[in-house]
């Protein structure tokens, strides 16, 4: 099992894990990020404080530190011990990405005309309804480009878990490089192209959404 092309199934398997990580982490980050953004623009000062603290704390912490906490420090405290590695990776990358999503959405919320929220309040919507039906849908539309950048960065960031027990694309690449130092260039190309394809998929999706929502903004 030496050549990277002869063992392409291993490459695909590794990228499949990268895709799973990206999808799951992306889901966690989007849900949590949206919640944080809503808390930050909301009327309850305690929640505003909690969200602001979380965003400040996590956004200023390197992903590696987050991973060391989830994969190394937490198990020593008896946390996450029986948890599957994929889930731990999802927690680390998802929690880390959430504040960036929150900030992207918050910038989108700020881009939504104040009159929109006012009109929603005027027909008797509660803060939650206002967010859910009026402000956030428009904020998401305005946030598509920064959200896409954040998700692209996140997809590449999944590579950090290569040194925390997950045999995803980067770990597999290291494995190949270690075994065939002659093929280093080819191995690099194969894995770089793999990542490029993933990132381009996100870009295409963002482009499609932007076009679809053009009329409704």
């Amino acid at each position: 099992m030496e050549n990277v092309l002869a063992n392409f199934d291993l490459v695909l398997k590794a990228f499949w894990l990268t895709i799973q990580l990206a999808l799951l982490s992306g889901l966690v980050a989007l849900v949590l990020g949206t919640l944080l953004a809503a808390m930050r623009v909301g009327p309850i000062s305690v929640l505003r404080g909690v969200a602001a603290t979380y965003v400040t704390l996590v956004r200023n912490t390197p992903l590696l530190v987050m991973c060391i906490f989830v994969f190394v420090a937490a198990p020593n405290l008896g946390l996450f011990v029986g948890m599957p590695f994929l889930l731990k990776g999802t927690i680390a990358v998802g929690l880390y990405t959430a504040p960036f999503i929150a900030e992207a959405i918050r910038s989108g919320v700020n881009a939504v005309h104040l009159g929109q929220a006012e009109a929603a309040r005027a027909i008797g919507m509660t803060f939650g309804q206002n967010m859910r039906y009026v402000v956030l849908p428009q904020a998401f539309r305005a946030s598509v480009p920064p959200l896409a950048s954040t998700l692209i960065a996140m997809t590449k960031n999944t590579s950090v878990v290569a040194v925390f027990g997950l045999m995803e694309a980067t770990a597999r690449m290291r494995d190949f490089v270690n075994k065939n130092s002659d093929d280093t260039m080819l191995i690099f190309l194969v894995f770089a192209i793999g990542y490029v394809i993933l990132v381009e998929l996100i870009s295409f999706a963002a482009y499609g959404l932007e076009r679809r929502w053009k009329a409704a903004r």
Partner: protein
Amino acid sequence: MTVTDEAPVGGGTPRSGEALVELADVQKWYGQLHVLQDINLTVSRGEVVVVIGPSGSGKSTLCRTINRLEPVDSGRILVDGSPLPQEGKALARHRADVGMVFQSFNLFAHKTILENVTLGPIKVRKQSKAEAETRARELLERVGVAHQADKYPAQLSGGQQQRVAIARALAMEPKVMLFDEPTSALDPEMIKEVLDVMVDLAERGMTMIVVTHEMGFARTAANRVVFMADGRILETADPETFFSNPESDRAKDFLGKILKH
């Protein structure tokens, strides 16, 4: 900012149960600026009150206090006998009963015209989708934009958008309608189509508080004209009296400038 319900009820005591909107001793500051001073105003059921005055007189702010889009610092505001609630679900319920039309239309940009009108009834009034749509189509028919139902707001003219905004407010079956300079952002040729809808509404007996510069509308549709300047109500009179024989110098000055145009 707080509304003190204990504030003394001033001269605007309701006239034997027919008062629908009542403001008593309302005060509001923006920092040092006293934007609403000793406001006492009672609007009866079915009455159409037009608020006029120079810009910066506080007339828009007054309009917006009635559904608490602007909180006041002191005084009492009652709608249909009950005081304005603080923020929260009760305030949302209150607002559902008070229709509002904005200067800049504020249609929900990501919703179609039909969805703009049905969103409130479905989510706030908990009507079924079919019920809300039937009613919405009736209202859009009434304001003359039924054929635009599936378009997005950005695809409509300003006049059409404002008529949709009126339909959106009406869909909530409000007790009173607030109009905050509804024609100020419109091109002249579109003003009439909006005013026609408002006159029609007035004739159907809707209680309306209208902040506007349209003196023609005030003459034809208003029961009363309220003149404001510097955050105070300076004059209240029927349109005929007000326009032919204003009492205060500020009002004379204001009318002089407006009517010369």
